[in-house]
Structure formats: structure tokens, C-alpha cells
């Protein structure tokens, strides 16, 4: 197949359309999904009808649990949230209701709902209430959590999330939504829980999440003359591909994690803790994260100041190699 440009947003949109074509139980709930204001759902209401691609009133808590009820009765809803912090508003409905039904009913049912946030993390200039990146929180709660870093993965992971029998949260970081992949093979599902080595190396493994994968690749390129950097993209944060990480660390023996969430109790902390307990390193590892308990300030310089970036990562890689 000749290379075709595929944008990240278009990949998500195609995944939705393909799954709706394939499975009549797949339906879509969200705000302004008819016109597809976020770009995620464009054209789908025209294709599948307004009773399947449902424009919701601004009642996130109700429509999130409505998805649960529909899922318990045979539907397979995808719920779009316009803002990452709407996951805080609906935490009860996702974490305390949808996620707990399978265990609490003794396996009588499951809740196959996919929650998608197109544009998580900083959107530059949207300030404190629109810029969180709470994927680590969902992984902590045990909810399947996916953060695709490229268009091809975005397609494949969203398809797998929709087909999964459990609730899955898909974070599409604002920092990669505008990127394009060169698609060289037919799009396929990407299994949850399987990471991907994006660049092979022998000196240090950089675990990068979401939009920080391109940043890690950039740093690996910058430092190519000095060090051989392996970039490991876990793709799914829960379940995490520990075996994939172990294999990488067996090659490199050094670790840096770059994670766009708050430091304490972030997924970066979990990666370091697990590696400390179960794997072997030649040098102390490092994390590059947002500061503890960060609230993203508005002014561009401040917004950037609290986000991990390529320069921070480069410094951390150098420190680990010393």
C-alpha cells in the first residue's frame, strides 16, 4: 500500500464510523456530536441518524449513566466529553457505577462503554479548567485507560476500546490531535495492553505517553550522536504492558518516564515503583512530569512552564546517562 496521510482526528472519526457500520449496537452520545464540533464525530449523524448519534443536553452525569443503562440492555455506547475535566464531573458515573457493575453483580453483566476525550491536556490558552490530563487517575482506579500517540494507533485503539466488554477511557491528547501519520498498511485494531517500541535503542529507555511520544522521538534524534535511546510507548496505561517494558529495560538498563500529569501518584510514579520492585536498572531512574498538584496557569509562558517538554526530557536523559 502506498503511503497515505492520515490525521489523528480523522483516524478517530473513521474508527467510530467503521465500528458503527460493523455493529448496530454501537451508538454515540455527546454534546454537539451532530455537527461534530470537536471534529471527532463529523458526518456520523448524517450517516447513522440522530437517534444513534445523539446530541445531548448539557447533563453529563445523566448521559454518562444513561450509557451505562443502555449498555446493560445490549447497546455499546461511545460517550464524547468536550473537556477533560468533565471526567471529574462524571467520576461517580464512570468509576463508582459503570466500572463496578461487573464485579458487584458477580459477573452477571458488563458495561461496554467507551468514553472519549478529544483534546486532553493543555490546549494552549484554555487555562486551568480545560487543561487537565487525568489518565493516571483512571489507571489508578482500575479503569481501562488508553492514550494513543499517533493516528494509526488512535484508530486501532479506539476500535479495540469499543469492542472491549468493559468501560474504557480514551484520551486523545490535544498535543497530537493535529498530527498526521503516513499510513502504509490497512488500519487494524490495536489490542489494549500492548505497548510499542517506537524507536529502538540500547542506552536508555524513555517511556513516553501520548503527545510526549513525538517529543521523546525528537530528543532521541537530537541525542543520537551521544546515546542510543529507546522510546517505549505503552499506549494503554491500564492494563500496562509490563512485559514490554521489562524487555526494553533488559536492553537498556536505564529509564526515564515522561508523563504529562501531576507528579505525586502519577502514572510515572507507578512505572518507577514497579521497575524498582521488579526489574533491574544500572542507574537511578528519573521522571519528568507536571509539578505536584499543578493547576495550569493561563499565560502561554506559564502554561508551558508546568508541562514536561523535550528540553526537560533531554536534561533527564543526560542525567540518567551520567
Amino acid at each position, binding site marked *: 500500500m502506498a503511503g497515505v496521510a492520515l490525521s489523528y482526528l480523522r483516524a478517530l472519526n473513521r474508527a467510530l464510523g467503521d465500528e458503527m457500520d460493523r455493529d448496530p449496537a454501537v*451508538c454515540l452520545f455527546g454534546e454537539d456530536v451532530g455537527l461534530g464540533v470537536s471534529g471527532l464525530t463529523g458526518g456520523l449523524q448524517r450517516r447513522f441518524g440522530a*437517534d*444513534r448519534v445523539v446530541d445531548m*443536553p448539557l*447533563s453529563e*452525569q*445523566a*448521559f*454518562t*449513566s*444513561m*450509557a*451505562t*443503562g*443502555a*449498555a*446493560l*440492555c*445490549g*447497546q455499546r455506547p461511545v460517550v464524547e466529553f468536550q473537556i477533560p475535566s468533565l471526567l471529574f464531573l462524571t467520576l*461517580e*458515573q464512570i468509576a*463508582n*457505577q459503570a466500572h463496578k*457493575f*461487573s*464485579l*458487584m*453483580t*458477580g*459477573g*452477571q*453483566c*458488563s458495561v*461496554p462503554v467507551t468514553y472519549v476525550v478529544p483534546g486532553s491536556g493543555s490546549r494552549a490558552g484554555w487555562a486551568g479548567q480545560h487543561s487537565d490530563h487525568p489518565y493516571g487517575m483512571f489507571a489508578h482506579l*482500575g479503569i*481501562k485507560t488508553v492514550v494513543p500517540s499517533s493516528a494509526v494507533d488512535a484508530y486501532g485503539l479506539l476500535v479495540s476500546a469499543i469492542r*472491549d*466488554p*468493559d468501560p474504557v477511557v480514551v484520551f486523545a491528547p490535544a498535543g497530537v490531535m493535529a498530527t498526521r501519520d503516513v499510513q502504509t498498511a490497512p488500519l487494524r485494531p490495536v489490542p489494549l*495492553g500492548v505497548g510499542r517500541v517506537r524507536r529502538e535503542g540500547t542506552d536508555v529507555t524513555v517511556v513516553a505517553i501520548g503527545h510526549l511520544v513525538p517529543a521523546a522521538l525528537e530528543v532521541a534524534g537530537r541525542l543520537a550522536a551521544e546515546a542510543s535511546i529507546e522510546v517505549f510507548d505503552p499506549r494503554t496505561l491500564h*492494563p500496562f504492558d509490563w512485559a514490554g517494558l521489562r524487555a526494553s529495560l533488559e536492553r537498556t538498563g536505564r529509564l526515564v518516564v515522561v508523563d504529562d500529569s501531576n507528579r505525586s501518584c502519577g502514572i510515572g510514579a507507578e512505572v518507577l515503583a*514497579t521497575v524498582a*520492585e*521488579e526489574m533491574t536498572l544500572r542507574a537511578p531512574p528519573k521522571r519528568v512530569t507536571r509539578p505536584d498538584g499543578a493547576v495550569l496557569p493561563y499565560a502561554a509562558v506559564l502554561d508551558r512552564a508546568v508541562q514536561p517538554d523535550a528540553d526537560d526530557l533531554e536534561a533527564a536523559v543526560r542525567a540518567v546517562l551520567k
Partner: protein
Amino acid sequence: MTRAASLYRTMRLVRRFEERAIDLVTAGEIVGGIHPYIGQEAVAAGVCAALRRTDVITSTHRGHGHVLAKGADPGRMMAELAGRTTGLNRGRGGSMHAADLSLGILGANGIVGAGGAIAVGAAWAARRSGSDRVAVSFFGDGALNQGVLLEAFNLARLWSLPVVFVCENNGYATTLPVDASTAGAVLGRAAGFALPAVRVDGMDAEAVLDAAADAVRRARSGGGPAFLECVTYRFRGHHTNEAGKAATYRTEEEIAGWRARDPLLVQGARLPADVRAGLDAEVEEAVAAAVAYALAGPVPLAADALDHLYADGLVPRGKVVA
């Protein structure tokens, strides 16, 4: 069995089930205690008598009456309270999560007001799949101050979904009288969302059944949602753990006044004495068998604690990793 006898039998079953469950709480066989339904039996019996097996309900923290009236097996229900693998939920849910999906019981629920939006989702799914299934959501007066429930009222009316909201106004949310919690009238909440609403004597199962049958018939035939306020009273404390405490929020006179209108007396008076005695004896046997079944059931194995957490069988990491 006549309608009158059948209503009486259901109420008698719930009453005796609850009394025996309280004994088992005292005996330490049911840990965590229960929220007894005693006094409110006419609501569950009347509403569920208007439903078909394929209709669905969402229930509450005070849910035993709803679950039994919808047809759950009393032995498996009692086994659930006793935390046995033979319980409805294999001992994974307990009193506040008892469910039987095969009977449309989407579960009791530990969070006040949480069931409404789930029922809306079930009703939406019924509509979408061309089924004439109706969803009923039970909730207390306290739930009328939960935003997500009010959101659910709006969605149900907006789309004319086949859902019946049943408010069991027992006068209190734990210790807080309804007058001290709820601005305006209970029916005013329904009026605000243009939900057809009626107030019924929740101590009279026949009256509840008449009102519920109207609402369910209308919902089933495409006439949209409805709201019932069932005025009732709980004879016992909010929870079994209230027994040892000096609970001063209700007077003895008030309790005695409502006990004089015990729904079992009201309905029992409509039956010939021999019919009543026959039903009492039958229920006695059924409840004794339920207790015996429950206590004979095996307790789960500790090693299986997180069985059913994920529908795809994903096994989470344990407490300590070797």
C-alpha cells in the same frame, strides 16, 4: 391467585424476609447491616405487580423489597446478604447491590439517586431495539435533591422514554425531614419537567398498583414517562445500626400513627382470614427455606476476591508482587 392475595403475599414475603434478615444481622451472619424496607412494602409490591418479567427496574440502598417483588429468588437473595457464593451476585454485591439481570433487576444501588439515569438508558435502549420494555426507577425523597436524577427527568421527558419514576416519600432522608430538605412540593419537581405525576397512598398496595398500571400502560404504548409519589413510612431505623442509637428525629406517636396504617393490615383486611392464614404459612415456609439455603451456601474463597472485576477476564496485579 387473586390480585389482592398476590399483593398481600408479596408484601408478606418482603416483611418476613426483612425481619429474618434483621435477625441475621444481629446474629452476625449478615455483616454491614441493612436498610430495612419494613413499612414500605406496598410500594414495591404495587409497582412490580404492574410489570412484566422483561421490564427493568433500578433500585436503591433500601432495595430488598423491590428486588423480591420483581421476582428474585428469596434464597439466593438471602444468600447474597450473607455473602455466599450461592447469592444472586455470588456474594460480591451484598444488600446494596443485589441484582438479577435475568429478571431485569439492574441492581440495588448504594448511591442515592444513581438509578434514575441508568433506567433512562435502559428505556432508551428498549426504544432503540424496538422492544416495548418499560423501565422503572425507585428512589427516596432524599434523591430529589440529587442533580443527576433531575437531569434524568429531563432526558426522559425530552425524548418521551418509557420510564416510570417512583419516589418513595417516607418523610426522611436518614434523619432529615423532607420539609427541611426540599423546596417546593415533591410533585413540583415532576411538574418542572412536565412529567405526568400523581401522588398515591403508599401504604395501600391496591392504590399503588392502580397508579403504576396506568403509568406503565402509557409508557409501554409510547405515551412517555411518568412520576409517582408514593407517600409511605419506614417503621424501623434508617439502617440496622440505628437500633443502638438514641434516634430522636421521629416521635413515638408519629411512628405509632403510621403503624396503624401498616400496609399488611390494609391489604390483609381485604382477604378472608383463611386465605390470609394460608399465605402467611406459605411465606413462613419460603422464608425459612431461604434462610436455610443462605446459611448452607459456601463462602467465597479469598483467592477469588477480584473475580469478575473485568468482563474479559483480565487479572489485575495482586497486593504484593513476588
